[in-house]
């Protein structure tokens, strides 16, 4: 390098300039608020990595949570109610009448079945519920009278 500046009066540095250069540089850096213990910027190759990993982790956790939330099963009862409600809403008047008729028919058939079943052998007392009725039925039982007789059968011999 043709560095002739040391011999050149035009560009000669003051005496001792370079000896104190480092110290003056440090003073200036401190006066400007520059941290002289560690470099102002953390290594670029690393500084972006940690925040990126943290951000990716947060996003991953959020996505997993969202997926799990969406897959959560709903109350079956609510489903049925919803279904029935939808069904009811979507039924026309004719359909509703048809359903009602069907229900009535089913009810009638149930009643018929009950009526066709043999009566239980137990006295009438078994069909009564109130205490007064139970007491009356007991009296009748003691009198040898059983339930089901008609009035004529009960009082046929009496002449009034």
């Amino acid at each position, binding site marked *: 390098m043709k*560095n002739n500046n040391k011999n050149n009066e035009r*560009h000669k540095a003051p005496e001792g300039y370079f000896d104190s250069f480092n110290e003056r540089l440090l003073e200036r850096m401190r006066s400007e608020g520059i941290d002289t213990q560690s470099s102002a910027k953390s290594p670029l190759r690393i500084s972006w990595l940690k925040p990126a990993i943290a951000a990716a982790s947060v996003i991953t956790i959020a996505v997993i949570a969202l997926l799990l939330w969406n897959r959560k099963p709903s109350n079956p009862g609510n489903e049925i109610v919803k279904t029935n409600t939808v069904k009811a809403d979507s039924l026309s008047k004719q359909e509703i009448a048809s359903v009602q008729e069907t229900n009535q028919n089913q009810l009638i058939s149930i009643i018929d079945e009950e009526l066709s079943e043999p009566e239980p052998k137990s006295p009438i007392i078994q069909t009564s519920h109130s205490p007064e009725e139970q007491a009356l039925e007991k009296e009748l039982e003691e009198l040898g009278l059983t339930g089901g007789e008609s009035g004529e059968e009960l009082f046929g011999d009496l002449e009034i």
Partner: protein
Amino acid sequence: MIELKSIPDDQLPELFLSSLNKQSVFSEIVNRYKEKVYFHVRRILENHEDADDAAQLTFIKVWQNLPAFRGNSRFYTWIYRIATNEALNILRKNRKWEPFEEGELNEYAAISEPALPRSAEIENRLYEAIETLPKKQQLVFNLRYFEEFSYEDIAEITGTSVGALKASYFHAVKKIEQQLTKTL
């Protein structure tokens, strides 16, 4: 214990990043480059006060930006580039900076390096002639002639193409020759 003086220039940035004692590595960088940086900016700025200011600003920028240095250029050209920019900023502030004129960039040929006279008296006249050049031409001339940078290195420092640099240097030499012919 690493002997810092034995570390090559291009390994200093890596050492700076990995070292717990960054101050020591930075001091080594300053010690290696303070004279080169000073005389480089001194040639641009002429006076000592501005050159001192530019030199200090250069190393402050080095300290702040060394973690971001990616090694895309040579370490010393990176430092020179910072120094050049700091000197030019001061020049612009003082309104002494003149950009290249378009015509200067057009003439480019296989330029042979002219040999300029080297005696002390003539060197003084040489410096006087250099000072008559536009600032950017001065910069290119100084980097090429005194510091013997390659055109590729100068291109990294100045952000100018190699072809434009060769043209600039060619014109600078021609002007200096004319100036020296007048004064001798």
